[in-house]
């Protein structure tokens, strides 16, 4: 990297001066790689999707739509998918994308040597299998699957699969190992300084999938700055200081920082809910917790508006449903959650025959989730009705291990985003004998979830989800409190910031001189 640029950047940082056309965003940890869907985590996905795109992608409301494809046809038997590619789409190296590149990318993903994270979801090991993939002409790509599946396109679009991005074959070295992403996204990879920053450069020849409006990954996506940079800053307090001093342009911030940042003259906030669900998960096989009346008592003991207001600094709204609030399936039925009623809670405790057995809530202090605060407040509310609740704070890796082994009574836990409610239910449900991490084992519920995976009709799915929601509230296998909020604090000289899907998107964002 040339010295001039670094020093100019450093100067901008130290003096808080404006450096036009450069956008400085924040990541709380370094990305794992630039290899889509292979070595990844949430931050990696967020950065990589600036550089690469797949055939289909997520719209703002969580539905899947065409991205590099212009349209997708599904055969009447639901097994053959024909993707008509957009014309004139360019890779970062200037080459024009064709169905040959799509096929090459697909074959690379399905090669075990690539270690693509989602291979097992598409090669039959988890049911769904792509039987064949062909490129009959330069503008068409055809995939055939073993049985009709309502979630096939959703799987291809998944963030953790890297959106099944289409890559130019020069993205890998001669020996087949990963080099760098040569994709079709609005930004090219600049310099990646490990542990410090990732630089993205505008791709001048980028063409947005839609040109009328922004719509998640499949709308307007123009790069409006010449250079954008993700700085790696793990510490929230440092991020706040950087925003206040003007050296950082935009960052996702925790709710606790909002009161402070709201009053800063140079900053503005953009806030929107996302599909991440926060709550208290329960081990329904625990000798104490298997008692359904006790679980109902706990749910009745918690004053959700109060709890949510406190852990989200007054910004969040309670939602007890496994279906997130901005989903198109979140309707009247899903709004019927738990009722806060301390008297009823006490009665339920009596009915449950509760004799003061200790209930331990596990929590962690990661700044990205309200785990610890939720546990503290829930503990106080449970104690208020006579439940002997305790908190044990663990480091995240340890808590996750206990989750995977099913070894806990309650945990203040957060489920990562799943756009489709069927997948959202599947995340928490399943037989514990096979997968100890699963929470909800009601066989009828499991059957309903399976059905929702295959059915494609919206109205019919809605009915299934309503029924699942009702059972969930009745049986209390888990107490969801609220959905996560994306809060982006940004400098006022930055325009076009839009919070979506818990990740920063730097396209359509510009910086005033």
């Amino acid at each position, binding site marked *: 990297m040339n*010295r001039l640029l670094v020093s100019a950047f450093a100067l901008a940082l130290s003096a808080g001066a404006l450096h036009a056309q450069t956008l400085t965003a924040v990541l709380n940890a370094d990305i794992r790689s630039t290899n889509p869907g292979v070595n990844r985590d949430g931050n990696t996905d967020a950065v990589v999707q600036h550089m690469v795109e797949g055939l289909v992608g997520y719209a703002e409301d969580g539905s899947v739509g065409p991205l590099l494809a212009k349209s997708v046809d599904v055969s009447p038997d639901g097994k053959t998918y024909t993707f008509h590619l957009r014309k004139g789409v360019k890779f970062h190296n200037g080459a024009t994308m064709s169905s040959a590149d799509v096929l090459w990318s697909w074959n690379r993903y399905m090669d075990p040597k690539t270690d693509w*994270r989602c291979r097992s979801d598409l090669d039959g090991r988890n049911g769904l299998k792509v039987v064949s993939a062909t490129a009959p002409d330069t503008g068409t790509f055809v995939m055939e699957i073993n049985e009709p599946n309502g979630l096939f396109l959703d799987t291809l679009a998944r963030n953790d699969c890297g959106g099944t991005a289409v890559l130019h074959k020069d993205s890998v070295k001669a020996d087949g190992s990963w080099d760098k992403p040569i994709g079709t996204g609005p930004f090219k990879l600049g310099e990646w300084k*490990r*542990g410090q920053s990732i630089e993205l450069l505008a791709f001048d020849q980028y063409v947005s999938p839609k040109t009328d409006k922004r719509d998640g990954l499949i709308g307007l996506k123009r790069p409006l700055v010449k250079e954008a940079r993700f700085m790696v800053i793990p510490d929230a307090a440092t991020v706040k200081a950087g925003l206040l001093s003007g050296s*950082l342009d935009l960052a996702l911030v925790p709710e606790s920082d909002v009161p402070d940042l709201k009053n800063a003259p140079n900053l503005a906030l953009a806030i929107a809910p996302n599909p991440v669900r926060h709550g208290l998960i329960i081990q329904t096989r625990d000798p104490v917790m298997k008692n359904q009346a006790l679980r109902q008592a706990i749910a009745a003991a918690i004053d959700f508006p109060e709890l949510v207001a406190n852990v989200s600094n007054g910004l969040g709204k309670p939602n007890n449903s496994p279906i997130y609030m901005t989903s198109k399936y979140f309707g009247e039925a899903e709004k019927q959650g738990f009722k806060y009623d301390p008297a009823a809670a006490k009665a339920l405790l009596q009915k449950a025959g509760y004799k003061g057995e200790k209930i331990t809530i596990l929590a962690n202090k990661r700044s990205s989730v309200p785990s610890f605060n939720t546990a503290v407040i829930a503990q106080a509310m449970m104690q208020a009705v006579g439940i002997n609740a305790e908190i044990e704070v663990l480091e995240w890796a340890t808590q*996750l291990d206990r989750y995977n082994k099913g070894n806990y009574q309650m945990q203040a836990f957060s489920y*990562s985003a799943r756009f489709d409610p069927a997948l959202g239910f599947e995340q928490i449900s399943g037989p514990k004998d096979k997968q100890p991490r699963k929470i909800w084992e009601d066989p009828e519920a499991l059957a309903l979830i399976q059905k929702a995976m295959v059915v494609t009709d919206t109205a019919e799915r809605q009915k299934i989800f309503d029924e699942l929601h009702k059972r969930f509230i009745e049986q209390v296998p888990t107490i969801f409190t609220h959905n996560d909020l994306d809060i982006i604090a940004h400098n006022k000289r930055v325009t076009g910031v839009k919070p979506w899907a818990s990740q920063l998107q730097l396209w359509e964002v510009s910086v005033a001189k």
Partner: protein
Amino acid sequence: MFRFALTRIAMALPTLLIVAVSVFVLIRLIPGDPAQLMLGDLATPASLADLRTRLGLDQSLPVQFGIWFGNVLHGDFGQSISSQQAVLPLILQRFLVSAQIVLVAVVLASLFAVPAGVIAAWRQDSALDIGLVGAATLLLSIPTFWLGLLLLLFFGLKLGWLPVVGYVSIADDWKAGLLYLVMPIMTLFLHEMGVVLRMARASTLEVLRLDYITHARAKGLSESAVLWRHAFKNAFGPTWTLIGLVLGNLLGGIAVVETVFTIPGLGRLLVDAIFARDYPVIQGCMLFVAFTYVLVNLVIDLCYPIFDPRVAAE
């Protein structure tokens, strides 16, 4: 001298081996593993098993240790699980960042604190002595992370003189790089000044009590001549040893300061690796830190005769 060095290194080998084995076992006793962390709440038993196999975590502990240790003996410390970088270059790169801060802070602190300590000892029990020792004790008593926070709050936020975010390598741009190092160095410098001053004073006091000082005084040498020619020179030996210990300890304990100022140093690397259960990085870091500790002490011991001719290296 050469044989002395060899013997010392040979003596350190068992210590290093114990460190290697115990780190290896301890880190695997801790619940959670890198595969789980990489997959998060989306892990299925199949994907977990796949990943564990790929990372070689499905083999028995002795086999895993054998493979790792064999590679280490060939100079290969493996690859980071989370970033896939080679461990040894990663450690060296991070070490340089930490070392520049620690070295500058300790050297600066010694420059001020050693003479101050000698003077305090020379004027033992005077108001000056009490004042210096009091100040040193006060500096020593402030936790570095709190001191760092206060500096950050004052110079970074209130006055806006120094950058609060990030890090620029001196190699890339020394001017900007220096700006980022001011506060971390100041934090360590203030703290270490307290430590070193007290050491220097104590060792000077020891020396002042020895017969040959009395002798020198009896010969009619002026006080300042006694102090500088005899006391200072001889008191520096033990202080030097202790500075070595401080250096060794600091490299292990600098994580706190690096966390406050978000500096990509060795301490932060280790703590992050622990959170991420990045086994190769943790093992490499620990072995490296233990090795540095041994090495620093060896160098200090070898230099000892230069400052104290009475002690020959045996």
